């Protein structure tokens, strides 16, 4: 399994993500530079968190024009896996690789804290090692993470099981009514508590929470075992899916 982590000017979590993939997960991981269109044959491209190009215009609006994004779009069109985290999610929406958009948080303030997420769907490359209904604790840190899309798009994604994670209370419950005050568990006002969505081709996933910051046991072990490595399940799911596809392919070629 080979990973590529893109560095845009202004990417901040690229080093952290690469550290987790390389040193904690133990996988081959290469840095991908925004000015290059060469993906170096990676199985999965990760667009990391940060403030690409300063995000002064609109989050992700400039990054989508960079040379690497042309290559990422071709990679995705060919069925290759793409994971967008936070700013990476914003870039994928701006690039049209994922539906919807991310706008200013409900409280108009940057928010950084642990949130609880419910895994909604597992038949996909990104959460296949979880059980549906699992509750994960993973931090968010963003000023523009409120997910919006028109109702038809949201309905379609629900029907096709493409909303992979939603914000929820620690016991996994959510408010029944969209108009209820959900500020106790939904950090940004996202429609239908969406935390992460997948494309119709089921190979591109974007989410606002940061799995790379809930992945390193050496870090999570402090504070009296406060955090579990829930974020690691996403990276492990991707690796598992890639391995399985490879086994199927080699089994097919032997036949």
């Amino acid at each position, binding site marked *: 399994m080979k990973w590529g982590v893109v560095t845009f000017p202004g990417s901040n979590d690229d080093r952290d993500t690469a550290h987790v993939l390389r040193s904690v997960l133990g996988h081959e991981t290469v840095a991908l530079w925004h000015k290059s269109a060469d993906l170096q044959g990676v199985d999965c491209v990760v667009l990391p968190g940060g403030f690409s190009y300063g995000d002064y215009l609109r989050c992700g609006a400039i990054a989508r024009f960079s040379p690497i994004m042309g290559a990422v779009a071709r990679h995705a069109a060919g069925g290759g896996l793409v994971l967008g985290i936070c700013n990476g999610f914003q870039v994928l929406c701006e690039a049209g690789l994922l539906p919807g958009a991310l706008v200013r948080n409900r409280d108009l*303030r*940057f*928010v*950084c*804290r642990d949130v609880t997420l419910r895994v909604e769907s597992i038949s996909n490359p990104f959460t296949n090692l979880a059980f549906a209904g699992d509750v994960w604790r993973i931090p968010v840190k963003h000023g523009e993470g409120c997910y919006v899309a028109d109702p038809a798009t949201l309905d379609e994604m629900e029907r096709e099981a493409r909303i992979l994670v939603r914000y929820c209370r620690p016991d996994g419950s959510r408010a029944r009514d969209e108009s209820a005050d959900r500020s106790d568990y939904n950090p940004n006002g996202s429609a239908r508590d969406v935390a992460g969505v997948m494309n119709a081709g089921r190979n591109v996933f974007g989410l606002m929470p940061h799995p790379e910051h809930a992945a390193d046991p050496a*870090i999570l072990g402090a504070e009296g075992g406060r955090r579990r490595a829930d974020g690691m399940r996403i990276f492990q799911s991707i690796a598992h899916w890639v391995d399985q596809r490879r086994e199927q392919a080699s089994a097919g070629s032997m036949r």
Partner: protein
Amino acid sequence: MGRPTTSERPPVTPELAREHGLTAEEWERLCARLGRVPTYEELGVATVMWSEHCSYKSSRFHLRRLPTTGDRVVQGPGENAGAVSIGGGLAVVFKIESHNHPSYIEPYQGAATGVGGILRDIFTMGARPIASLNSLRFGDPSHPKTRGLVRGVVAGIGGYGNSIGVPTVGGEVYFDHGYDGNCLVNAFTLGVVEESRLMLAKASGVGNPVLLIGSRTGRDGIHGASLLASAEFDATSEEKRPTVQVGDPFTEKLLLEATLEIQAADLAVAVQDLGAAGLTSSSVEMASRGELGIELDLDQVPLRETGMTAYEIMLSESQERMLVVCEPARVAEIQEVCRKWDLEAAVVGRLTDDGTYRVRHHGAEVIAVPVDLLADPPALERPVAEPADAEVASEVLPEPGDYDEVLRRLVASPNLCSRQWIWDQYDHFVGGGTLVHPGGDAAVVQVVGTDLKVAMTVDCNSRYCLLDPYVGASIAICEAARNLVASGAEPIGVSDCLNFGNPERPEIMWQFEQAVNGIRDACVAFRLPVVSGNVSFYNETEGRAIPPTPTIAMVGLVRAPQPLTSWFKSAGHEIWLLGSSREEIAGSEFAAIVHGRRDGAPPWVDFRAEQALHQVVLGAADRSLLASCHDVSEGGLAMAMVEACCSVPDGLSMQGARIRLAEGMRPDAWLFGESQGRMLVSVPRESSSALRDLAAGHGVPAMHLGEVGGSTLELDDLVSIPVADLAATWRGAFGRMVDAGART
């Protein structure tokens, strides 16, 4: 105000010099040394270099007394930041710096550029910043400016720190009417570097080119150092808003990566960031450190706008710029790195051997002044006078009737409630090394890729300092050290940010002298070096000075396998108090909130007792005896209990607790007094005898107070409140205070 606009080139006269802020004596020294009347540009350059902010002319005489050496010290004061060894060939580089006046005038940009400035000080030395802290002071919450300042400053710190990808892992904030007219914003950053690769700002190599990299130079921030930072506020201060710079964290992020790449490839001889007084002070300081001359050609400086004069280019404080000296053969490589990061890199000058500071513009020489004249103005020994003792009322304060009610008031009060509203707006995860997040006694960050765990804290109780600046400053050192020890870390170095009023007033200089003595004595006792720091004078408005605020930033190294944390872990654990309690109510938050009293003597301080306490806690941490450890400070034992019950991170369950009163003490002094040198710890039952023996061995009193468990906090028969109630009040109070009226 008769000041000419900076676009003109007026005749230089003694009157103009006075308007610039030069004293008659300084004017005479300048003319005498030059043997002529200075040019307009020379006057501007001398003014900023001799400003209080750049020259430390009032403080240098006193700062010499601070201890600055030690086994771990790699770089003491005099560079952009100090550096202390943490083993494994690595050093931490750190400094705390003020950005008070800009933040009061324009809170978002003032605070943001304060963060940008301290970050540059760290990566200028080749260290990658891994954590930031901040220490904030605001006026009374009811003052009309306070809430807007809090919201703007916090958003500005977050806006810059979050964007550049350095975690803000902790800090402190206090409210006091003494800061109504002058808030304080002190920013701290710590970075990590291989000791052998530390980059210095000492120019060397005659003929070597000088490059200016980063942002273009504009008309922003002209005279920030001399006008804004080196004069007190008055009714016209709002007019100084144009002297506040505007930050661009994106460009700083590029500058950070480019600078570290230049360092990694060993391309530079010396690097110096452009901060206060911009191109002037950075180039003068580099040349001065190397005892060389320098010549600059302003026609080569990339500009943001046309028609800028030499005066404006020299004094611009445009942010995100860096000066680099390299060997001639390296220029192309440095420009290549900058091109990779989409930054400009222009050769703007070269080093010379004649000790002269020369600047050319449009082909003409506009400045030719000896470097040493600009860099080394004489240190002043300003008059010092102890103010007459305030009359201390000797009546005995009445004991409160309803302790439940008192505790509820304290928990919701501005200086004791949880600061979560603030740190929720700071990215404290980025970097991937944060072990103990904001809200603990100290923040702890792992150096990723190693086992090294660095703890850091900022502390100062300025009420103690107002009552007795010597004792107050000593306590700031003691408390910072205690916060590190409570996290399982051994203190290894100090950076100080000394915020005071107008140094021309003898009673302010007395406060300063006393505070420096307090820091010195405490640091000598603890064998701690002060490796970097900053002095901010003129923090006063219309003659009213802030309370003396010598903010202490302290860094430690965690010895135990895991850092200690402050909250109670499990029902059944025993609660112990280490250290001596005295009947000390004066100067406490309790006295201020319940009795409206802010007078008297601050708590007793005993360096030996503090050190013995350190030994007990660190020894217990080494043997993994402690389940939790928390410093007892503002709000006394009662607040320490509240915090140990309620500061549990999300996702873990809160514990109640029950403790008994000590005999022979007034209950209010026992619960709310702020005696120093105390720690509240919890231990599994089977470890308590080992803890008791360890404490006895070091002569530290240890008292078994009670047990963890249940869902209420019970303080003898005086207080009984469900912890869920306390936690809701404690966590929500800050937001209720600063958001109230936000949308009106």
